[in-house]
């Protein structure tokens, strides 16, 4: 569990290394969600028909990695309240995916802690393919649990996702 007092702006909150994502990983995802678009598993279609460098790692997969990143950064007592991200670059089969979260800000409102995180996905060359921000909710030391389901109260509107970088 993330400890509220140890979350300082500018510090790394969490990192997930997914390792090298191969065509097999991409195919497993495509099958799990029944997405049969050929740019994700048919090399000839992806490269010759769609002129892509290789089959693509699904954006739909990458979004779950970002949500997992925030969820794991907060721990089981936290709640991923909001996330916004933009896809900036393609990731292709063979790329290694790392997810990183950095603390941007934190506020205490109505007895709960709100932490704003910058979240990014990078490849083996350190290039950012996906980037955005998230807001997580945490219990304060000695404070009440985070309500579940989480329905924001009007006072929570004081915490907003930052504008895109």
């Amino acid at each position: 569990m993330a400890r509220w007092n140890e979350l300082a702006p500018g510090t790394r909150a969490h990192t997930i290394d997914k390792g090298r994502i191969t065509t097999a990983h991409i195919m497993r995802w495509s099958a799990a969600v029944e997405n049969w678009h050929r740019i994700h598993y048919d090399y000839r279609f992806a490269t010759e028909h769609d002129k892509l460098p290789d089959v693509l790692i699904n954006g739909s997969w990458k979004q779950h990695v970002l949500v997992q990143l925030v969820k794991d950064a907060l721990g089981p007592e936290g709640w991923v309240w909001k996330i916004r991200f933009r896809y900036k670059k393609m990731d292709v089969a063979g790329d290694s995916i790392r997810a990183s979260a950095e603390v941007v800000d934190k506020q205490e409102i109505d007895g709960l802690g709100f932490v704003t995180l910058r979240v990014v996905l990078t490849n083996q060359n350190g290039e950012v393919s996906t980037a955005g921000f998230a807001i997580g909710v945490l219990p304060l030391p000695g404070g009440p649990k985070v309500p579940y389901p989480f329905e924001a109260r009007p006072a929570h509107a004081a915490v907003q996702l930052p504008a895109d970088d």
Partner: protein
Amino acid sequence: MDAPSGIKAESFDHYRGATGRTLVADLPLERDTLRRFVQAIMDTDPLYVDAVYAKGTRYGDVVAPPLYPVHAFRPRIGGADPLDALHADPDADGSGGNEGVFFGLAPIESPFKRLLNGGNEIEFFRCLAVGEKAVANARYADVQLKQGKSGAMLLVTIETTFTTEAGERLLVNRQTLIWR
């Protein structure tokens, strides 16, 4: 604004604010479906697979990852097979017209063929639990014809509210799609 292809921005105005039909997942969330899903996203959180562990959490039972509901709507038995198109057209992309991105909205008709995912903004309320069905209600929050460096493109923001059948909110997803 006239795009190079001759299409006019006004031709998309009627989509803005339009809502679609309510989608109800055919099947409730099953544990094996969830197992395959979390293995595919490579998340080993016991909350998603271990009923004993989950019982001791605030969730009380196994639940899906927060963003799972966007994938809860699968092809219906007896419905169109997205791979049928490959028999008639070997260059078909296999997407079945990307029906899955519309969540019950009438698909946008345009000359653009290539679809890119621009990004998302999501608010989460709770997780879908095993045994629950997801429900989706979508609307076109925005539709804009833009001129980019490489030509015209259509920027579409679809706002989809996912709930349980009882109407409890799971998440609201604002997804930006780009057609070129």
